[in-house]
Structure formats: structure tokens, C-alpha cells
């Protein structure tokens, strides 16, 4: 079953910082939900095709025609932090 360590790993994958007590209660919650979900294992689905799209649509395209872009000003108005027409983020070290 899901452990606190799993939960911390998932939290990291999800980029959510979890306090210790939060991780504990989440582990319990998820354990309950996952136990409930176990019921799907009762079904034999070996020969069943998965459904990704409920509508039988395919080949939906857009023509290669240019549409107007937003102005830098409009985009920057939305930015939580900006500099020189760009979004500013903490230094990324590689």
C-alpha cells in the first residue's frame, strides 16, 4: 500500500511542499481512496480497448495560416514578475 515515502515522492513530482503532518494525513486519505479503487481489479479487462476520447472524432486540423499574436505589453501585464519584456524567475543554474 502507499507509504509516507511514496507520498513524499509524489509530492515532489507534483512540486508541492508538504509539511510532515500534511504528508501523514494525505497518506491516510490516499490509502483509503486507493483501497476503494482496488475494486477495478475485479474486472477482467484484458481484451478491452481503452477509451481516451469518448467521441469518435479524428483528424481535426488547423490550416497553416498566421493569426495575430498578443503584444509584449499585454503579455507582460499578466506577469507576476518581469524584466526587459520577459518573465523573471529565480536564477536557473545548469
Amino acid at each position, binding site marked *: 500500500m502507499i507509504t509516507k515515502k511514496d507520498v513524499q515522492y509524489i509530492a515532489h513530482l507534483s512540486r508541492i511542499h508538504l509539511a510532515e503532518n500534511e504528508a501523514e494525513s494525505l497518506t491516510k486519505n490516499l490509502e483509503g481512496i486507493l483501497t476503494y479503487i482496488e475494486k477495478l481489479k475485479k474486472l477482467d479487462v484484458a481484451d478491452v480497448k481503452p477509451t481516451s476520447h469518448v467521441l469518435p*472524432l479524428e*483528424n481535426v486540423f488547423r490550416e*497553416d495560416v498566421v493569426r495575430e*499574436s498578443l503584444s509584449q505589453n499585454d503579455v507582460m501585464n499578466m506577469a507576476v514578475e518581469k524584466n526587459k519584456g520577459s*518573465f523573471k*524567475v529565480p536564477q*536557473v543554474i545548469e
Partner: protein
Amino acid sequence: MKNYETVIGLEVHLQLNTKTKIFCGCANTFGQNANTLTCPICLGLPGTLPVFNKEVLKNGIRVGLALNCKINSFVKFDRKNYYYPDLPKAYQISQYDFPIAKDGYLPVQIDGQLKNIGITRAHMEEDAGKLIHDSEIKASLVDYNRTGTPLVEIVSEPDIRSPQEAYDYLTSLKLLMQYLDVSDCDMEKGSLRCDANISLRKEGAKEFGTKAEVKNLNSFKAVKSALEFEVGRQKKLLDSGERVVQETRLWDEAKQITLSMRSKEEAHDYRYFPEPDLVPFTVDQKVIDAARKALPEFPLAKSGRFIKEYGLSEYDADVLIQDKNLSQFFEDCIVNYNEPKKICNWISGALKQELNAKKINFPEAKLSVDHFISLIQKVDDGTVSNLAGKDVLKIMLDTHKDPNAIISNKGLAQVSDEGALENIIAEVVSENPQIVEQIKLGKESAIGFLVGQSMRKTQGKANPKIINQMLKRRILDV
């Protein structure tokens, strides 16, 4: 000392040259001001949805066919989930288990031999934005103009056996893609990017060794140098009984070394799943057949044909096909002036030199077939000298004028009239008594020097053949 075999696989990202981005109508152009080529869709704003650019699929199919791949009749997109500031949705729309093309190969000339390098797959995906480090403000800046640029990622099999082979593979791939006209394949602009996987194994071993992934390769030369460095590094490790660590390493161009990425190595857990916002695509066999029919002649086929049809040497043919436009120009010229060897020499020699000197591509030179042929004909019939012809070409590229006009305007027509040359010959003979003596004593080759002197005095306008004859007659009385 043990011997190792080098095993290399390359992942090439190619930016397609469609008019618009892959999932929105923003223009697909390079070099604009930051964040001026974005819209709610490529910015990944909440609520927006992707709609697939028809032209990208078309080009994906063409790339697959050019690489001798099977084209999947069922194609879908998947989400590749990871966090990075240049990825506005925190997932990249890519293709996971049903790529557009798979199981192909690219024939590459290696040491004069053709070798087929396997192509595992080619898939379509969206490009990320650009993250620029700004040391002044001690922060990074994100520009999303590039976000959503259509990419085709071409993954090779681990069939490449040396850094030089990797270089040759890339050269062939680039040329092929230029013939297809799907990308401008400019590594400087980032429209072609390459990551390399490299490992060593004991000669004869079946199992692969542990590989390192090398990134930040900004030129074909960098790919080769980085791989050479890796061969040395991994060999040293293995020789001393150490292990190669599976990791991503960055090429440091200044120091000419690869370095382990300092950031902690994430377990790659991309949580791929089918993109629910895009429906699947079916590729009809008819569409594939039509695309195959419409493929251009590829470089290797063309060079073979040039050798067979025009009697060019392998070397000449190979030089010509390195540029799709020049090779086409070559054939256009031949239609009007059936002198393949001469035309080839003019294209591979003088024309290429001039283009290089001017740092322009052939199309930018706007050179017409008629002008070019009539120049060569003027040289061939002796109207202008070979040397003067090169000057005329230079002026043609600057002014786009008819070579005949240039020749008469500049008075470059070759002087073949012996009377007009008589004085110059006399002058040259009297100025160089020692050389004349040597010639008389039997060193006939020295006559070349006197021809040169005479040509200089006529500013290259004299017909060197005539000069040669006249000098011989005068000195040796023949």
C-alpha cells in the same frame, strides 16, 4: 590495454519551417523581440486548447519517408509532464507510443563506404521557450516566442561507431532535410539541435556499456569534439576499473570538456498519457503514397545520376550535391549549354568562392542561368580570359547585370590581336634578360613567368594562349 568499441546514438531536434506554430496561429519566425510572438494558446494560459497544424503532419510524414521509415497509420499525441520555466503548461505535447514514423535508416557516406544508420523513430512535438540567464539582475528571464515551434525529433539507433561517424551522420541528415525543405537546419539559430548518447564496450561484447547523455552541443564540430572527449573520459574510467555513471553531461565549448550536470539528477518520471485535448489522426495509405511520389530526388541519388548522366567525377558530383540549390542550378545550366564539366568547375570553383566571400546563400545571389552561361561561353570562346571572367562574375553578383554589358563597359574583352600585343611582348622580353636566357638554354617552363608578366601589363585582358605562342616565337623562334 583493452580495446573498446564506441557506441553512439543521436537525438536530433529539427524545427520545421511552417508558417505558424504547431498548435496555434502565431507566426513561426526567429529573432523577434521577447514575448511578441505569443498568444493565449502557446502561453499555455488556463482554458486554452491546442489545434494541430495540418502542415506539420505533412512534413512529419515527409521526414519519415525520407528516412526510409514506416509511417504509422494511427498517430496520436501524448503529454510529457515536467516542470521547467520555459515550458508554460508544465507539460510538453509530444508523441509517446504512436510516433509518426519508425524503423527507418539513413545511408551515410563513411570513409567512401555507404553505411545505413538505423532510425528508431521520428516524432512530432512542440518546442519550449527560451530561458536566458541574466547575471546583471542575478535572475533568469523567460521568452516564450519559441514555445510551440513545431519540432520533429529524429532518434537514431546506437549504430554510430565513432565521433567522425556522428559528424558524417549529422552532415547527411542535414543535407537530406534541406533537400526536403522542411527546416533550415541552422544550428546557430537552434533550428537543428543534437543530443548524443555515448557508451563504450569491450570489443566483441554484445551488451551495451553504461551511457552518458551529452547536451549543449552547438555545432557539428562540437558534437564531434564532445564525443571525442567522452571516448577518452570513459576509456580512462574503464581502464582504471571504475564505472561510467549514467548521467547527463554538458559540453563546455570554452574548456572543450563535458561536465556532469550539477543539478540533482531527477528520476525521469514524465507520466506520459494520451493528450485529451487533441483527437487522434489517421494517415491514409493514399496520403502516404502521394507524399512519397512528391518527394524530391535525394542527395545520394542525385550524385549517382550526375556521375552517370554527365560524366562527372565522384568528387565533383559530391561537391555539387552539397547544396540543393546549386545542384539544381547546375542542371538548369546544362539544358542550355551542354558542358557539364566546365559548368561544374565554374560552380564549385569561382561561384562558390564568391558566395563564401560575400557570406551569402546561392538564392540570395539571384544569379540567372542565362547570365551565368553566357559568361562561361565568353570565357570558352576566348572573348575574356579565365581570370577576367572571375572578375566579371564578381560584378555580376553585385549588380545582377548581363556579363556582356560588363565586359564591354569595363573593357575586359581579351586582346587576341597580335599587333596590339607586339609592344608588350617586346617590353617583357627586354625587361627579363636572365629569364629569356634560361628559356633559350632549354628551361621552357620559365616561359610561364613571362606570360604572367605580360598578362599583368594588359590587366588580364590578353589571351594567355596567344601570349605564350608569341613569346615562344620571339625567344625560340618557333
